[in-house]
């Protein structure tokens, strides 16, 4: 008895020392931990109020069982939220190790074996992954407590003593309140087989050996125990329902009707090897090698039901690799559940038998058998191999986050929190971009609200629930739906009172600029703050969904009560018991220990063969990996490798693929690469690449490279040509031709107007003083038309800043039918210059965009296309519109120094040259092209983002092929319902510009006899990535 305790204690000490210290480095960068921290912060501030306004324009925390969150919240009163989180994590570690110990004792009836199992649990890669990579604290706590409850359930059914019923139910209640999925599936996968085992044990008592247990005997035993089983079943069902009643109430009221979010655990692991690694190889780890032993033992008669459960879990855990999980779970459950939990349960279920294996290997019959058969050295080598493999997996899993960071580097939140607190910035919503799961930590520290959130089951806005994205914050990883969803928030931010964006990823910068946002400042931590003008603050009263008071009370009291009761029953009572009687009777299941005497020889053989197969698979995998990475073996490989290197900005590697005879040295190459800026070189991610080799001669080839790039603005398809040469067996690319153009001046002077707006001149905590509020610049709408083109409705037109100060322009249009029914409303997105100098004119186009894939039945396009556009589906024909434009004084992004050096007609369209005469490097030039009819009436507005930037005093070429406007129909053309800053446009034009000369606009168009139009006008809108 003393010895077994030693193993458990060693296990606990190592667990606390190892995991307890590691969590301080891992937990905060896990996927889930910070979300739980945010929930905890909610409870810490308003224990009984389930509504939280801070995410998703308001959501209820009754959508997740609260125990772990409330525990963290309670502890946070002592030492802050993070103290609470780490304390709960420590408790979870202890609970898990002891839980495995008790589960193993139950299964094997051998304390020594259970000790081994506890020790192995410490190093189990599945536990490490769940805690240190996923950070699933509630799931871990739930599972650990479930493991603790198993022996009590066994004892209740076996002995029928109510003491055990009380203790097992109290533990089930704790499980329920910490995690909802665990008890439900735990019922199926842990408790059902356990009941089967109890019945088997009871049946065995009626005969001499297990072998003699036949089905009739088993059935008889089952009948005897039937009412205890039913009693337990009903009672635990009751607990599952009542303990988290508000949760069920909420699920019923707000059913999860969202597009399923892709999860790696549903992938085909053979195709998506990274998912296979994370969701299969790591959790199984070294267990993969002893699978034959585990299956052999689980399919012995006593464990038969566990065997079935274990097999099911194993198969379910393979995700989309085989079609079986999909068929077993059905479409809905398959798409909602994350299947990694099945693997987690399978590997934890296997731990007792792993402990048994280790016991037999270290000091049991397997040791003697191996030594007898293969000699002592082999036994030691094998043991070393297993132990070494296990440690390797531990190190590999622990450092996974180091080598492949799943999160952006840790962000210092303080400057952001301070920013939100100052100057009433929290009167608007904010949106973090590129924060990863750290956004939850930011939310926890501020009262400001965001439209985003990090608990996707609670999303409410249709803009979010109809997309398979978990957060807008990381929308770039979610392709079309992600960027599409983000664009909706950026284009009509006033709908959500969204004014500030914290950008930690410059990928999003262009989309922010072209949607009309402007940089406000860079915080000390490097986060860029973007703001949008003309956004009303959040009203003082915002709606919430209330729930009955009794549900609030249940939610606020029962979870913590279950812990107190469980503590009282399980710990307190057993202490009393220990104090009262010194001689503790051996627990029922401990009598059923088997003696390990004869390790099956055949099993050893099978295990060896299996291990060889596994090793072979690993070997093949590594070899495949190697083959893929040999770059210069073939002409197409070197092209692929070159683009891969460019994509990851590994210029030194890219340079190594260039022909050494071309004598472009690295410094020269870097110089050439570093000067190229633009949407492709700075903001694009290579999406797909196809290489077509043409003219392949012995040592030379030409390659046509078809590339598709994801950029924040649009999907870019671009073809490149390369010449390749083979030198001494290796293929190389010939370097591209360099533009030798030299700018005229070494140093030149440029004068410009700059503007500065103080904001508040006088310090006040109240609203800004009246005299510090600037007048809104006056705009004039020169033309506005409702047109239908290709089945889409758009409002197009032109407007001018007729004030004397630069203006930021927002244009919003509403469509009406004949009976003035409001049909749709949207704002101008890309087709406008959002910043206008005095007297500058911009064309604009407002597309009425619907919420993409509003119906979940619509098929999602398989590939990425950020430019994809979902026309709104209008139930009725719009016949008129109103147009609301607003100007606000702008003082940034006023760079207008890109000129058209030439626009020449070609057969199809135009060849143009841009020239940058100012002092800023333009990263993404946008061409806005207005189409006019023969009377110079505007018909259409088109845009084109140029792929390369324009450097200072340099040229950049572009091609533009006008589109055909065949079928374009002007439905309504009027300036009657156009408003500027809330005033009628007509009044403005009469007052500010009574003698407008309309020929000026005509003079500036150029003739082009296209289909459906007669004149064109070109305008530039310039995005500067790094303003100087």
């Amino acid at each position, binding site marked *: 008895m003393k010895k077994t305790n030693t193993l458990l204690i060693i296990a606990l000490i190592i667990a606390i020392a190892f995991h307890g210290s590691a969590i301080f480095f891992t937990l905060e960068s896990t996927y889930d931990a910070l979300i739980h921290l945010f929930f905890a912060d909610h409870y810490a501030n308003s224990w009984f109020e389930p509504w939280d306004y801070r995410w998703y324009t308001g959501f209820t925390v009754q959508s997740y069982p609260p125990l772990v969150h409330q525990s963290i919240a309670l502890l946070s009163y002592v030492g802050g939220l993070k103290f609470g989180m780490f304390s709960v994590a420590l408790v979870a570690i202890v609970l898990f190790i002891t839980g495995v110990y008790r589960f193993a004792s139950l299964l094997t009836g051998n304390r020594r074996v259970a000790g081994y199992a506890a020790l192995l649990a410490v190093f189990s890669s599945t536990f490490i992954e769940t805690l240190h990579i996923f950070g699933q604290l509630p799931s871990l706590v739930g599972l650990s407590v479930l493991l603790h409850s198993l022996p009590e359930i066994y004892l209740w059914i076996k002995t029928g003593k109510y003491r055990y019923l009380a203790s097992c139910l109290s533990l089930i209640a704790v499980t329920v309140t910490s995690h909802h999925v665990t008890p439900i599936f735990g019922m199926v996968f842990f408790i059902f087989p356990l009941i089967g085992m109890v019945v088997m044990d009871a049946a065995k008592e009626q005969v001499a050996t297990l072998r003699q247990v036949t089905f009739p005997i088993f059935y008889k035993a089952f009948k005897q125990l039937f009412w205890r089983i039913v009693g337990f079943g009903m009672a635990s069902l009751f607990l599952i329902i009542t303990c988290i009643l508000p949760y069920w109430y909420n699920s019923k009221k707000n059913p999860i009707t969202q597009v399923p979010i892709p999860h790696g655990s549903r992938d085909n692991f053979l195709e998506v090897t990274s998912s296979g690694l994370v969701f299969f190889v790591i959790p199984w780890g070294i267990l993969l090698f002893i699978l034959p032993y585990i299956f052999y033992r689980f399919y012995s008669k006593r464990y038969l039901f566990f065997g079935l459960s274990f097999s099911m879990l194993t198969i379910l855990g393979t995700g989309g690799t085989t079609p079986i999980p999909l068929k077993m779970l059905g479409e809905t459950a398959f798409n909602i559940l994350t299947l990694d939990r099945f693997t987690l349960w399978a590997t934890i279920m296997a731990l007792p038998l792993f402990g048994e294996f280790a016991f037999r290997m270290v000091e049991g019959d397997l040791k003697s058998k191996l030594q007898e058969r293969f000699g002592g050295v082999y036994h030691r080598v094998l043991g070393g191999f297993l132990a070494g493999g296990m440690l390797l997996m531990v190190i590999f899993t622990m450092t996974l986050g180091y080598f492949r960071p799943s999160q952006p580097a840790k962000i210092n939140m303080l400057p952001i929190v301070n920013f939100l607190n100052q100057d009433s910035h929290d009167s608007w919503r904010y949106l973090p971009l590129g924060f990863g799961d750290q956004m939850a930590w930011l939310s926890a520290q501020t009262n400001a609200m965001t439209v985003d959130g990090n608990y996707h089951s609670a999303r409410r806005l249709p803009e979010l629930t109809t997309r398979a994205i978990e957060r807008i914050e990381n929308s770039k990883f979610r392709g079309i739906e992600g960027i599409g969803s983000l664009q909706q928030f950026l284009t009509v931010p006033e709908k959500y009172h969204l004014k500030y964006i914290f950008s930690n990823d410059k990928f999003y910068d262009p989309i922010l600029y072209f949607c009309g946002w402007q940089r406000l400042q860079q915080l000390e931590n490097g986060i860029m703050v973007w703001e949008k003008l003309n956004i009303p603050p959040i009203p003082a009263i915002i709606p919430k969904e209330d729930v009955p008071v009794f549900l609030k009370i249940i939610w606020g009291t029962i979870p913590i009560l279950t812990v107190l009761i469980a503590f009282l029953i399980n710990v307190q009572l057993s202490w009393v018991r220990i104090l009262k009687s010194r001689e503790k009777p051996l627990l029922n299941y401990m009598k059923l220990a088997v003696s390990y005497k004869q390790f099956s020889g055949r099993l050893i053989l099978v295990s060896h063969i299996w291990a060889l197969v596994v090793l072979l698979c690993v070997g093949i995998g590594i070899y495949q990996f190697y083959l893929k990475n040999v770059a210069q073996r073939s002409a197409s490989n070197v092209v692929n490798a070159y683009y891969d290197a460019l994509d990851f900005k590994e210029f030194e590697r890219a340079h190594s693929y260039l022909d050494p005879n071309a004598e472009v040295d690295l410094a020269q190459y870097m110089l050439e690469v570093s000067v190229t800026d633009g949407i492709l070189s700075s903001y694009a991610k290579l999406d797909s690449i196809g290489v077509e080799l043409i*003219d392949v*001669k012995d040592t*030379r080839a*030409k390659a046509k490279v078809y590339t598709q790039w994801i950029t924040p603005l649009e999907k870019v398809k671009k073809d490149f040509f390369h010449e390749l040469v083979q030198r001494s067996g290796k293929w190389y690319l010939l370097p591209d*031709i360099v*533009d*030798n*153009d*030299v700018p*005229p*001046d070494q140093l*030149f002077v440029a*004068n*410009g*107007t700059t*503007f500065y707006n103080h904001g508040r001149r006088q310090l006040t905590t109240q609203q800004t003083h*009246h*005299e510090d*509020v*600037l*007048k809104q610049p006056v705009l004039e709408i*020169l033309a506005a038309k409702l047109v239908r083109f290709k089945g889409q409705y758009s409002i197009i037109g032109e407007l*001018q800043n*007729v*004030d*004397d*100060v*630069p203006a930021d322009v927002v244009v919003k249009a509403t469509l009406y039918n004949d009976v003035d029914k409001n049909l749709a409303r949207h704002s101008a997105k890309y087709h406008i210059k959002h910043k206008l*100098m*005095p*007297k*500058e*004119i911009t064309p604009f186009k407002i597309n009425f965009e619907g919420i993409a894939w509003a119906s979940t039945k619509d098929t999602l396009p398989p590939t990425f296309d950020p430019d994809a556009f979902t026309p709104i589906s209008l139930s009725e024909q719009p016949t008129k519109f109103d147009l609301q434009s607003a100007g606000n004084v702008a003082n940034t992004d*006023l760079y*207008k*120094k890109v*000129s*058209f*050096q*030439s*626009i*020449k*007609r070609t057969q199809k369209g135009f060849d143009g040259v841009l*020239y940058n*005469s100012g002092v800023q490097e333009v990263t993404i030039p946008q061409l806005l092209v207005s189409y006019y009819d023969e009377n110079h009436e505007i018909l259409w507005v088109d845009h084109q983002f140029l792929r390369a930037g324009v450097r200072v005093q340099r*040229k950049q070429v572009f091609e533009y092929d006008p589109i055909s406007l065949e079928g374009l129909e002007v439905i309504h053309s009027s300036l009657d319902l156009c408003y500027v800053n809330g005033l009628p446009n007509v009044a403005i034009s009469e*007052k*500010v*510009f009574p003698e*407008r*000369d*309309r020929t*000026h*606009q005509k*003079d*500036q168009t*150029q003739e082009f006899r296209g289909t459906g139009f007669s004149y064109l006008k*070109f305008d530039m809108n310039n995005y500067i990535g790094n303003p100087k």
Partner: protein
Amino acid sequence: MRRFFPLCILLVFTACDKAVQPAEGDGTWDIAWVNPIDSVRAGTPISLKFTGIRSDTATSIYISNAFGTTVLPLKKEENTWVCAIPKHFVRKAGPLYWKVLYDEKVKLANRIAVVPDAGSIPHVETYFGPRSITVGARDYSMLVTIPTDPFDNTLLAGTPVTIKSEFQNTVELTQERTADFIAWKNIVSKKTAGRMLVSASCLETDTKELTTILFPANAEAFEIAYSRNHRYADGNQIITFQTNLLKDAYGNLVGDGTLVTFFIKDAQGGYLKTTGMTIDGVAKASLLHPAEAAQWQVTAYVTGAAKSNTISVVFEQAISDFEVSFSEDQRSVTIGPLKSFMDQIVPDGIDVVLRVYDIEGKPLSTKKETTKKGRCLFKLPREYFENGTYQLEIAAAGMLKKYKTELR
């Protein structure tokens, strides 16, 4: 709603006013208000004194005005019963209604008119906007003043307010009188741009200074000119266009930052466009010289408002000719040295295009290069161009040269 609540109460009581006056005596009561007050200045302490009240505990005074409503106790002093009205009620101008209540019945009721404290130094709130207007006697900013007594009661209608405005050292004073609580004036803009300061004074109080900017009106027709280093089309010099002083109809320089578009048509039907923003009335914009001879017609616009004269700019060919040399196997084609107008080597970066056609004139390949040190080199490797006869076309600086060559 909370703000209107006292008002509602007031309305209710105004309505009841007549019904309860004179007080319903039940015969046994003989209450008298011993210090009748008709009206007081806001802020003056008021005590209501009564005689004939029987029980001080059951009797209370109900008061109500724009500030609110409350019930006050009575205090006995010698033979009279006194009720001191709290200062918050006394500070609010308007009717102050009171009632003597006993057993929920009104025994006596009346009112006192509280008038604004015109004797003290008043406060004056001012609002002025818009903060910027256009010159030309059409646009205006409005100054609104709200004189109040120290307790924030607006002063009585007809209170005189002096409105002062300063523009370019000229101060104008006008007298306005308050009506509906405010005194206001539209201050019409002048014909010169600048900054106008306004303030107001009421009784002894002067307000802070407020500002509106008078921005110049729209530009009038203007002239443009250009400057450049030389007249040659070398593609590597800057030509700068410049306006004369842009002024509005009143002779003010237009506002800084006004966008001027220079729109250029060349002789070949091509278009060029460049923009400049005015600083002190002058806008400048620049372009590169073309790389081949050209004639530009330049007009500038402040679109909708003003247009310039049209000027003509002529560029002469800078590179008169270029040499082309072939290697022995004809597979290396060297162009250059390209020389400019005084036989100097052209600056790097002149575009040279080589088009390769087969003997029938079918296009095979187009290569673009830029010159370096006046030269550029094209290679025609054997892998792609088998031995045979080809036609080559070389274009640079607006010139085209054709060759027929046999690659070996």
